[in-house]
């Protein structure tokens, strides 16, 4: 990962997680958008930071809850969806879905920033 995306990744990860504890799930999209508006430099990196920032949190929490529950509920939901009853596949699907929401919101934030202030931003030396 490019070092330049670390701040954005961490802000989305932490602020996003905190927001979701108190606000509806979609608040994470607002956080990712705002964070990239503030810190986004490059569209691809912003997407990646958003995708991984949200995806990681969703993966970690879903995985933890899944282990706590011994996979009981995920196994049922994975038959309903259908994922052949594979609960861990559902954890991955969850992470990817959260990642997409975070990534696209961050991408939008970054591109809006670039449209509003087209001047190149001082970038940390890599």
């Amino acid at each position, binding site marked *: 990962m490019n070092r330049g995306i670390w701040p954005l990744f961490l802000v989305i990860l932490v602020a996003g997680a905190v927001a*979701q*504890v108190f606000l*509806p*799930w*979609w608040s994470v*999209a607002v956080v990712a*958008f705002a964070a990239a508006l503030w810190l986004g430099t490059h*569209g691809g990196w912003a997407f990646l930071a958003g995708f991984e920032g949200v995806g990681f949190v*969703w993966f970690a*929490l*879903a995985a933890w*809850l*899944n282990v*706590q*529950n*011994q996979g*009981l*509920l*995920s*196994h*049922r*939901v*994975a*038959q*309903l969806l*259908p994922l052949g*009853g594979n609960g861990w596949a*559902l954890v991955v*699907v*969850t992470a990817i*879905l*959260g990642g*997409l*929401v975070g990534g*696209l*919101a961050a*991408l*939008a934030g970054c*591109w*809006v920033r*670039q*449209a*509003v202030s*087209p001047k190149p931003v001082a970038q940390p030396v890599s």
Partner: protein
Amino acid sequence: MIKWIKAVLALAISGALTWVLNTKQGDVPPFGKFLSPFEGFWQNGEATDAFPAQQNLTLPGLQAPVQVRFDDRRVPHVFAQNDHDLYFAQGYLTARDRLWQMDFVTHVAAGRLAEIVGPSRLETDRFFRRMGMVYGAQKSLDMVMANPVTHNVLQSYSDGINAYISSLSAKEYPFEYKLLNYAPERWEPLKCALLLKYMAFDLSGRSDDLRMSNALNKYGPAVVKDLFPDYPQREDPIVPVGTPLDFKPLPAPPTPPSFQAAMSEKVPAREPDPELGSNNFAVSGEKSASGFPILANDPHLQLNLPSIWYQIQLTAPGVNVYGVTIPGAPTVIIGFNQQVAWGVTNVAADVMDWYQIKFRDHTRREYWHDGRWKPIRRVVERIKVRGQPDRLDTVLYTHHGPIVYDRDEKPFLSETPIRHAMRWTAHDAANEVLAFYLLNRASNYQDYTAALANYGSPAQNFIFADNQKDITIWPNGKFPLKWRDQGKFILDGTDPAYDWQGWIPQVQNPHVKNPARGFVSSANQSSTGPDYPYYLNWTFGSYERGHRINERLARMTRATPDSLRVLQNDNLNLNAQLMLPRMLALLDSQPQNVAKRGARQQVRTEMHRWKYFYEANAIGPSIFELWYSNLVRRIWEDDFSKKGTGIELRWPGRDRTNTLILQEPDSKWIDDRRTPAKETLPDLVRLSFEFAADSLQRKFGEFGPKWRWANQKSTDILHLAQLPGFGRMDLDVGGGAGIVNATSERNGPSWRMVVALGPQVQAYGVYPGGQSGNPGSPFYDNMIETWRVGQLYPLVFLHNATEQNKRVQATWTLNK
């Protein structure tokens, strides 16, 4: 410019994706919301060790602290200091485990399913509204709320449910709310009434009046009397024939001359309907090892998850009762206390009739009755439909009841006649809550009869035993006082002689106490023999289960709870015992036929060997069920199916069909009118045998262990909303319809209970599910295995809030 386009595009895509994932699309849940581990379904996964052993909960609305102790099956044992707190806690705890289930069922009953699910359930909603479910529930509710005792029970219970609902945040909503994307609403006492009406619909909400009238029109009274007799040839009634009456009966209303004229020919005998049934039985102290009575009950209902029943112990001054409740209804429905035990099975009395209505004109504002035009009441039903504008539907009411369908349309249930008003006991007010309230507190026979006097609908066979060694059974409920065969067919809605004209006095309902034979029992068969002075119905549940139970109870001596448990699991099918020898004889009577060749010979040999037991591994039941049912179809299909005749007709019942096969091989009904050839009974027996063997061969391959009964039957316990993955499929169990162990494809013993009375009551029970309604809980289906193998759990009955019991590990305190 390009940057702006990119920015707007990304923003739009990101926004649209987020919006879509937050919105329900048709049947698809809002995936973002649903999968989010912060608020979606992941939150519903119960950690296996998450249940606190000690907890203090503050519940505003309580009057005093309530102790709740949970046993290892997670059954709450509630110790309250007054009735208010007792039922408040019952409401709270039931909602905690079963909120979605109880709410969902009341939506169905109220005709409010489309509101949750969408337009696909609009017809269901219209049907339940047109059946007058809310109308009946409101009438019952008014009566319950007029009584201060039951007002307190219902209000406290509802308040308890609401205390739970208001404690929930969105991420704590039960799983199904998240999947269907809606939120729990406030619980009103009306919902409790709706729930009982839904049970009434389930147990007494269907009628064959239209099909019988069609049969009468098509074939005339002589054929109807022959094929649909008023009493079966083979029967073993609940109240034994010859039980002396302890009352002087009222005269029945006179049979209208017009009906007599329509039915003028000879005299009658009866028939069945399997599936939804139940067993209960009790042996007296003389028959038990302990010298005290033992009682058993297993109500057969559709097998669902979350379970139909919820176990609870309710203790407060004046009451200490254990048993099962229906989530959404207060008190214990089937259970026991230290002195008494009781159970119920359905009475198939005819409590729903249809009246042909003569409208004055096409405006349908008046109808002809008793020599004059009477006004029709119009009730507008507003049905909410998810994602669509509300629909309005006008339902017409006469003094009989609602005109379920007032114009030509395809009825939701094909047996519903159009332009007919319905008369149904579920529309009459009765205080069933009071009946159960008093039963929960009963300590002897007098208390039990006093409780029963309040009960209306759905009529049930209330079996009872107490530690003063009384055993008794009352087929009980509100029974209209009818002339013979009133309501067997569609009734004339213009003539008051056809109206219901009163009720059988409750004390004159059928009953028997401490009979000489030393036991009482019921399995939905005829309540009484023909010697009972009133007309209840011409058709009841089939006699086989009841007869088998009586046969075994008659032989039983020194019975223990285990003797009754074993009887609950009895797999002998009396229908097979009666019919198979005859069917094999007819098959063998044909000298040269395909049945004697090769693989078919194996099948025949197997059937000769089989002893009529429906064990999971047996092959006989797979063959017999297909063989017998196909034989019945071949006999009647040409004369009674809609395909063969173009109209809805009731088919002759099992008892009558069996008599035909056993004794009337030359009956005109045997020939298939649709073919030029003349079929004989041996022909039909051979063809149906071939059909059965072919079907099994196609499904499972060559004759062998794969043909076993459990495979062919495939008992499934489905989730209430039929979600794939949320039920338990293909259970390896024996039994079947018409068998004491009535575990069929979708129905079965929904609660098995055995209670041994005595100085210390001992009880055993199990149901196919678990206490929790949460599919993410290990307690969602943990009792299924015990149920499947026919075992029971000893039930934990605590005498006080501090009693030590090693199976009780958690204690919660609910504070005000």
